[in-house]
């Protein structure tokens, strides 16, 4: 029964090593995903700024409120007409 005992003692370390690697990879991917989400959000904000009608002073890039977005949408439709 000695090999079985050895297996039980060592499998915790083996599982720990593989889990540590998986955790390291997961943390890295989570950080990168958060970074990409931030880039996507900022890109959306810049796209909103770019959509604003010409001649109007450029507002600061920040998340537009619902009312501002509605106003921008109306201005875009008006420009298309």
């Amino acid at each position: 029964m000695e090999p079985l005992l050895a297996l039980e003692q060592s499998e915790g370390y083996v599982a720990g090593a593989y889990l540590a690697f998986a955790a390291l990879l997961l943390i890295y991917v989570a950080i990168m995903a958060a970074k990409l989400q931030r880039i996507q959000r900022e890109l959306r904000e810049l796209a909103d700024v770019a959509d604003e009608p010409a001649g109007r002073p450029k507002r600061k890039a920040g998340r537009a409120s619902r009312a501002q977005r509605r106003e921008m949408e109306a201005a875009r439709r008006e420009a298309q007409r």
Partner: protein
Amino acid sequence: MSAPSLRTLALSAAALLIGGYALAFFWAPLEAEGFIQKIFYLHVPLAIVALLGFVVAAIHAIRHLRTEDPIHDARSYVSIHLSVIFGTGALITGALWAKGQWGVWWEWREPTLVSFLIIFLLYATYYPLRYSIPERDRQARYASVFAITAGAFVPLNFLAVRLAEPFIHPRTFSSTGGLPGEMLVAFLVCLAGMALLWVSLVRFELGAKGASGDLAKLRRALLPSEAPPPAPRRAVAPAAVSTMSADQGKGS
């Protein structure tokens, strides 16, 4: 021939890693050490890929100094970043293996362990050095010089360890006897998978840095009033690389 896409690389890495670890656990025989030897298939590829990554970073740094193209600086930076992460993995898995096998987390008398730690700590100083220099061009140049010097240290260190008398850590590929056939096949598949994982993550991070650089350019074009001052305190040169240049000709 065009470089494979990130998706192809990532899928190949996943397939090789799953296949490699399936071979390691279900096909490769148990060694005299017992089941704990299965950490070998994770620990050794991590350490080898981390060390090779440092050498790749040095090669990109040489190309950066020769061409002054920021894409090579970005590649060198990302290679070191990922190699430090893989090195952390090698240290953690090595400590777990040491505890299970020898009953200690660390052995200071073993040249293999200490030399790897020295290299790891050397590269850990790369970030403070880089971010302590505000001017972007000078920062990139100094970082490249560091990457070349430290990269030259890696093979020298490897040779020194080979020549030194081992204390308890076995030599993986010694001239007196290698791995049995099945174990060698499983190990090589795991090593290839780990190397592809490293390349995939380098491509992924370079892509993210490229997107970040493009975003900064867009912001400057659309909102000139929000443009940052000419010499920002924490200038990170690799972020200024556009997506286009980041996706071209992956040497790593």
